[in-house]
Every structure is written in structure tokens, then in C-alpha cells.
């Protein structure tokens, strides 16, 4: 049986990057929470990725590669710098600041967890949790891919996801109650 050629070997930047446009924009908007900034972020991401495409190794993970570029561009943007100053990546400290999980049965909450509520809860998450959660749940990236995208060890990915989920539940509950 003929072995198909790896896609990335024969595909151009256009063919690899354009199908990701909507998802990249969505992710960028979640990060920046602003349409104009999201557009700037995506545009700069595409420009940088196109310029650096020669350094991309065909056959490796293009999606993780371009998401990583987007995230790096975001981190150097005004909003990204502001978020970083607020989100010191000190997971222990973050742990202390998180609302305590009050062990309320989740089923009661989640049944009423409509889209608007999830949007609000996600909006209120610190950006380091929001991005990890979106990459995992929405982009369905493996821990390894998230690790490559965010440039942190897999262990850190796991702890961020765990805290992100707990924070989301608590925020949703708070919004529900408030």
C-alpha cells in the first residue's frame, strides 16, 4: 500500500494556515477580548508566520507552531503585557487567590450553565487559565501540544488546567448566585 506523503511536505503556507483562520481569530479574541486588537493580533501572527515559514519543519505540528506565534505576539502586545503584570505565573499564589471549591453538587450548577454564563465565566478567568482551557477544550490539543504552544512543561499545563476548571466552576457558581 502506498504511504501518503506527509501533508506538510507538499503544502504551502497558504494551504496550512488559512483553514485555521477562524479558530485563530476566535482564540485571539478570547485573549484580547477586543475585536480590533484580535484582528491586529491575527494579522501580525500571519505576517510573522509567513516570514518565518522557512524555519518551520515540514511534518511537525503546524497548528502548535502558529498558535505559539500568536501567543508570543499577544504577550508582547499592550493587552498581553498588562495581563502578564496581573497574572504573575505563580501557581501557588494563584492557588491562594482562587475561590474555595465549596463542593456544591456540580450537576445542579451545570444544568443551568448556559452559553452566556460560560462566556462570562471564561471572560473573568485569568488569561493564563483561559488560554490553557481553550486550547484543551476547544482546540482539543493534547497536553504535549499545549505545552509546545505555551512553552511550559506538561506538568504546568496539567496544574493550570486543573485550576482553570475549578476557577471556572466557582466563577460560574458565583455568577449564578449573584
Amino acid at each position, binding site marked *: 500500500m502506498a504511504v501518503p506523503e506527509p501533508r506538510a511536505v507538499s503544502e504551502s503556507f497558504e494551504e496550512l494556515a488559512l483553514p485555521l*483562520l477562524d479558530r485563530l481569530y476566535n482564540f485571539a479574541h478570547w485573549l484580547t477580548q477586543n475585536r480590533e486588537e484580535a484582528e491586529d493580533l491575527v494579522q501580525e501572527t500571519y505576517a510573522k508566520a*509567513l516570514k518565518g515559514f522557512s524555519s518551520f519543519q515540514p511534518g511537525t505540528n503546524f497548528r502548535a507552531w502558529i498558535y505559539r506565534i500568536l501567543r508570543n505576539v499577544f504577550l508582547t502586545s499592550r493587552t498581553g503585557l498588562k495581563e502578564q503584570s496581573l497574572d504573575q505565573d505563580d501557581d501557588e499564589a494563584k492557588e491562594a487567590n482562587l475561590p474555595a471549591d465549596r463542593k456544591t453538587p*456540580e450537576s445542579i450548577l*451545570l444544568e443551568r450553565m448556559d*452559553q452566556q454564563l460560560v462566556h462570562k465565566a471564561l471572560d473573568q478567568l485569568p488569561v493564563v487559565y483561559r488560554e490553557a482551557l481553550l486550547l484543551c477544550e*476547544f482546540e482539543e490539543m493534547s497536553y504535549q501540544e499545549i505545552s509546545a504552544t505555551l512553552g511550559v512543561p506538561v506538568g504546568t499545563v496539567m496544574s493550570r*488546567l486543573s485550576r482553570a*476548571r475549578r476557577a471556572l466552576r466557582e466563577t460560574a457558581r458565583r455568577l449564578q448566585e449573584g
Partner: protein
Amino acid sequence: MACELWTAKLDTYLDGELPREEELALREHLRTCPGCASQALDRIQTKRSIQAAAMRFQPDPAFRARIRQSVAAPPARRAWKWNWPPLLALSAACVVLIAALWITHLQNRAREQHLVSELVDLHVSTLASSTPVDVVSSDRHTVKPWFEGKLPFTFDLPDLQGSQFSLVGGRTSYLNQSVGAELIFRLRQHNISVFIFQKRAVETGCAENTATSELNFHLRNWSKNGLCYFVIGDVSADDLQKLATLLKS
């Protein structure tokens, strides 16, 4: 294992990232523990809620078009890529053409050189002969008719009376198996040969009004009415030019 330890692994399990052995053990536990199974169900619902809510923002069509345009390979670069084979072919064709022209040029030069050498040899052998001319006369009306029947062509022979050149006589000559006329003129003590051949006898064609030098002999040539004229001698190039001008008049 206590349920807290199992529930701590639930998210990793649902993300499909738990090692195989632990995954099987947790799956087994969920079959027997309603509390943990309920939590697992809740978390699956949370995942689904996030997945459904996460696709929230759509780029507007204008922005999408802008990105598409910026990402499309630059036309110049594409053209460059696409044109490589024709460019290479064109370059190769140019190289071949230049080489062919150069070779032709070299061959022509070699033939011209050969012709000049032949004419010099004919001139020298005439002068070395004990009978340099077969018709001895300074009268053109004697010399020109002598060639009748000996040549497949006729030629003009101007009157040089009053000039510094005097006609000595004539003989037939051969170039590339073609017969032609050789006239001998004298300037002071110098003999000058004037060869007249049909153009077809001259392989390289008869270049117009060219001057050449070979072994200190000077040569002037021109063509007229299908005939090639060559004037050759050891006089100065200026004197040779004067005789050529008189003969052309």
C-alpha cells in the same frame, strides 16, 4: 484508593491523557462508584458547555479577505518559481546560440585567413615565375581581349594612363578550382597583383571594401557585378587604396 484520589484524576482521564493502566483502573472504579461516576458526568457536561460556548467570535468577511490576500503567495515570487524551467531553457538556448555564433565567426575568420594566405601565395608565385604574365602589354585594349574565351566572365579595365600605376600584363589564375584573372600593375619597382574571381569561388563571400595585411603584404578587396576584386602587393596601404579607387572608377 479513596474517591478523592480518583476524582483528582478525572479531568486528565476525560482529556484522554491518563496512562493506560490508570485509565483502565479508573474506568473500573467508575463502574462501581456512583459518586465518582456522577462527578465524571458533570465534568463531561462542563467540557461540552465550554466546547459549545468557546466558538464565540467570527472574523468579519473583510478581515478574512484581507488575511487571504496577505497570505496568498506573492505573484512575483510565484512567477519566479513557475518561470524557472522556461528561464533555464531560455538561458541554455542563449548559451547554445552564442556558442554557435561564436563558432561560425571563428570558422569565417579561419576561412578569410585562409583566403588571404592563398592570394598571397598566388601573388608571390606569380612574381617568382620566369614568365609572370602570359600577355605582356601596358595597353588595356590588348590585355582585356586576351582573356576572352579563357574566362566565364568579363570585367572592366579602366584606363590608367596618366596615373602613377602602369599595366604590365595579365594571366589566368585559379582559386578553389575556379578560374579568374590576374593583372599585374607596377608602381615604381613594385609589382601589384589584381585578382578577379567570381563570387562563388570565394567561400567566405566577398566582404565589401575591406583592408587586410598578411606578412607585410597589403590587401584591398571589393565586389562588383558578381565579381570579387583583390588588390595585393608590398606597396603601402595608401598606394594600394589609390589603385583600388582607380580600378573601381
